[in-house]
């Protein structure tokens, strides 16, 4: 494993999420791409960061269990009932 502590890598580290999200200004994007072309560690870093996000996005969302939804509706109904029966 290579120690990833070069000054140039560190300088760019904070901007990588913006870069991945396409929220970075063009000039800085270019700077990062130039750096990536010659730094394998940073290539791996960007690639594994992207894959981290995509892994979580791939997880099938948990469905809301019907019993949970039913209890939520009951809780709301009782709140409404107590609100309407209470004199203003």
């Amino acid at each position, binding site marked *: *494993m*290579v120690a*990833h*502590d070069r000054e140039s890598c*560190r300088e760019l*580290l*904070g901007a*990588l*999420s*913006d870069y991945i*999200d396409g*929220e970075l200004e063009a000039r800085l994007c270019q700077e990062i791409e130039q750096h990536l072309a010659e730094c394998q*560690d940073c290539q*791996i*870093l960007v*690639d*594994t*960061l992207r*894959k*981290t*996000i*995509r*892994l*979580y*996005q*791939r*997880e*099938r*969302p*948990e*469905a*809301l*269990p019907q019993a*949970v*939804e039913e*209890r*939520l*509706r009951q*809780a*709301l*109904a009782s*709140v*409404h009932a107590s*609100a*309407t029966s209470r004199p203003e």
Partner: protein
Amino acid sequence: MATAARRDEQELIAALQSSDSAIAAAACAELVQIYSPRIYRMALKLMGTPEEAEEVLQETFISACQHIGQFAGRSALGTWLYRIGTNVGLMRLRRRRPEAISIDAPMETDDREVLPQQLVEWRWQPEEIVLSQELRQALDQAVAQLPETLRAAFILRDIEGLSTAETAEALGISVTATKVRLHRARLQLRESLSRYFAAAEGTHGRA
């Protein structure tokens, strides 16, 4: 399409704010129908257990239906609900371990930007690999290990798919602060998962 959705939302808000309690109750039921799966999913990731996720879900919708009069329409209804839900969840998480807050070092110790340690290639695409039970557990565990403020930012932005501005709105912090939290969360998760994959490869490679 977007305009129609926008109009529907305006109508729903008007109904929620109606002084006619029957109309308000029906609108509240509609609110549950549309948003409860998302809020539950968010709460489950944030809290880690179905029991606590359900409590957060109930508290969120009760609070939303009670305070809909205060909803000024500056953000989308969904973002507003995420904001309530995140607040409820984070408050519970902080109450859960008061001793950790008083004894432990301040937050900066664990929500700092970590310098990447694990720099090994992942030679696969996330879309191609099998999401085994074991991998799902590893994903959940990595999220659970994040400091709660980073966790909330990651869940809203990367799992729930809110924009950076909406995430900032839901967290009640600036866009800049949101980006910092999101970045730190992603770096920490990447680090945890790298360790997991390295260990898994070692085991499976030898088998």
